[in-house]
């Protein structure tokens, strides 16, 4: 079975937005999106010791993302495909999902896995967009996953509790961070990672037309970045016995009750 894991490389720390480009400052150290590590881990668990299973990482990002993606190889993934292209810069959900879908079509994996959200944009949206473009059934927020006999079953976390959803393969599944604890790469894994196949493809290689790429292919934009609205002064109460009532009044006033 071939499992493709869609992963993102995000800035390691001190997230800030570049005031000039109004985009996330990606100049610092990069790392595999921690939530995608859950997806890699789940893929590796499904692969088990199976020699006939393959776990391939698909990612969209600048060339230097390759270093961070190697962590997945060190964990045990077999291959990395990085879609890297200057014209992809500034891609929003519409453009990114288009490029990723093309890369995934090329792989023809039975199962496509995503992690819970992107650490940098706090978006929990990529898998649904990609699933639609691939025209595949989707199960999201999966806290428990089983694959058997050409179908996949997921226990899905919702606000109301757990659903159980089943879909035939090929399918797209997005896992929640509750599904597993990602393994630490072993030293052997780390040292062997560099030798595993790492392929970089351009948008042209994938057949992504110019009008679907980067800003041209995007449908949203950022106008401005600013400070969050100030919380305002802290209202202070020194309890004289009437604090509980005052708290209730405050909550009513703030429509928080």
């Amino acid at each position, binding site marked *: 079975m071939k499992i493709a894991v869609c992963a993102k490389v995000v800035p390691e*720390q001190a997230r800030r937005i570049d005031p000039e480009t109004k985009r996330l400052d990606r100049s610092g150290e990069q790392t595999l999106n921690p939530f995608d590590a859950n997806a890699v881990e789940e893929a590796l668990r499904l692969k088990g010791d199976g020699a006939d299973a393959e776990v391939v990482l698909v990612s969209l990002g600048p060339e230097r993302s390759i270093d961070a993606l190697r962590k997945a190889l060190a964990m045990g993934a077999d291959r990395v495909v990085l879609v890297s292209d200057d014209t992809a810069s500034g891609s929003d959900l519409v453009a990114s999902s288009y490029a990723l879908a093309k890369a995934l079509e090329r792989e023809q994996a039975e199962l496509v896995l995503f992690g819970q959200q992107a650490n940098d944009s706090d978006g929990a949206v990529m898998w649904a967009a990609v699933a639609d473009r691939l025209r595949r059934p989707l199960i999201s927020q999966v806290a428990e996953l089983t694959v058997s006999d050409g179908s996949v079953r997921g226990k899905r976390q919702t606000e109301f509790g757990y659903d159980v959803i089943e879909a035939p393969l090929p399918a797209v599944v997005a896992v929640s961070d509750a599904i597993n*604890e990602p393994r630490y790469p072993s030293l052997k894994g780390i040292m062997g990672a560099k030798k595993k196949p790492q392929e970089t493809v351009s948008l042209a290689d994938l057949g992504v037309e110019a009008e679907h790429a980067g800003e041209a292919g995007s449908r949203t934009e950022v106008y401005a970045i600013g400070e969050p609205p100030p919380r305002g002064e802290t209202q202070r109460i020194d309890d004289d016995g009437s604090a509980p009532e005052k708290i209730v009044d405050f909550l009513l006033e703030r429509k928080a009750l």
Partner: protein
Amino acid sequence: MTRPSDFPPRFDVSEAIARPTDPEDERIEVGIAIVGAGPAGLACAIRLGQLLEDAPAVAERLGEVPVAVIEKGKQPGSHLLSGAVINPRALQRLFAGRKRLDELPFYAPVEEESVYFLTSSRAVRIPTPPTMKNHGNRVASLSQLGRWLGEQAEEAGAIVLPETAATKLLVDHGRVRGVRTGDKGRGRNGEELTNFEPGSDVVARITVLAEGTQGHLTGAAIERFSLEGENPQVWALGVKEVWRVAKPLRRVIHTLGWPLRRGAKYREFGGSFIYPMGDDMVTLGMVVGLDYRDVELSVHDLLQELKTHRLVRKLLDGGERIAWGAKTIPEGGFLSLPKRLHAPGVLLAGDGPGFVNVPALKGIHYAIETGALAAEAAFAALQRGEAVGRRGALASYDEAVKQSFVWRDLEQVRNMRQAFGHGFWLGGAMAGAMTASRGKFPPGDSGTEPDADQELLRTNRARRYPAPDGKLTFDKLSSVFLSGNKTRDDAPSHIRVQTEVPPELAELWTRMCPAQVYEPKEGGVEVTPSNCVQCGAITAKGGRLTPAEGGSGPEYTVT
């Protein structure tokens, strides 16, 4: 009064030494294992790469991975912290013919420098002591330099293995065989969690220990092979910040005096540094010897106090704090160096053995030089084709270090730090005499007492620390946050310390630790190891820091 050494931690150095236990086909085999991706370790890796480039026969004998650098931080630089003003000579020698001086990751060369003696209200300019002159030296961020050196090492063919702690020295038949790396994924009580990954035996022909201050395996090697020097090692704790500033600073500043006290009984030796980093950043730090005695002394809070001085406040006006960190510096100097720097199969380089020139505040170029010399000695032994584990096979390293400027410099200033045990004035006078005589005065060698042997005393020092205002002065927890420390809460504690201790010791540790790891509680002290930024102060003052899980601890970037 209590002494910290009255309550030693439960730690035996034999815990850090083992035979290889992994089955042979599971061991990781490398040619040369370097522990520590700091300036010493990376200089060693780079120099080895250069030498192996022209000697393919030797490289082949080292196998698939000729040079591996093992680093416990998230990446090279994550655990590096210093001032720093660096003497470029060692880097120039390392990159001779390959890189120009202006291609090295430095800020501007030092042009102007001032030394001040501070009181709480005044700053008196004093002539720069000859040992501190920095003309020709370069300001740098050691963390950034580390990252850059890491890239150079990889380009030179080394494999850098970050997030990997070296917890044991592998010794077999009297020789060092490599190191064992630490486990990952253990719970608070040592239990194996679902993603438990055991460490590995990394076996190598030659092991270079470049762990930096209080190197865990360095200490083990020194004890195991009886390499102890004349004097025990002593340390200082440095706490520093990096600020983005509105007005560029155009000179390098050092201060002495306030807020440290000059009386001999306090044993408060140290001072501060303020260096420009480009036009828009300034780094400043407080460095204090850990032989201090007052339980209420807190180097972090002294730094906050320093910033309230008119001189410093002016420099930071309109600025913003962007980084914070802490680390110890070995201060024993020449007389605390191990009596030999090698043993069968192993070499010691950098701050681990203690190549630091305290009066000049320099250690980085010695680390680089000794790292490079270790590479040359290792290469020579391999090239001779002899059994490198044989006693004396690596003796050429000691020879080379003794012939180098490292040895000459340190010998000249060998008694200076010890002089300040007599207090500021007398110490200063003695230091002056030492410099003038190029180390011939006083004759002989002064003793040193371990920091933990100092008897504690209590004053009301803490009353004068400024309350954190979140703009100029900061509390410890928000500083730990700024260091990027995200250590796993349920990791096993890497700090060995007795917890049932008298209140004055609990308070000593509480104040001493810049990361608020210790807090007094009924009957002793509470330890929160996940705050730890691995500075090492506890090891000097009665406890023992051991390597934490690889990848944990601070994530310094510009310190």
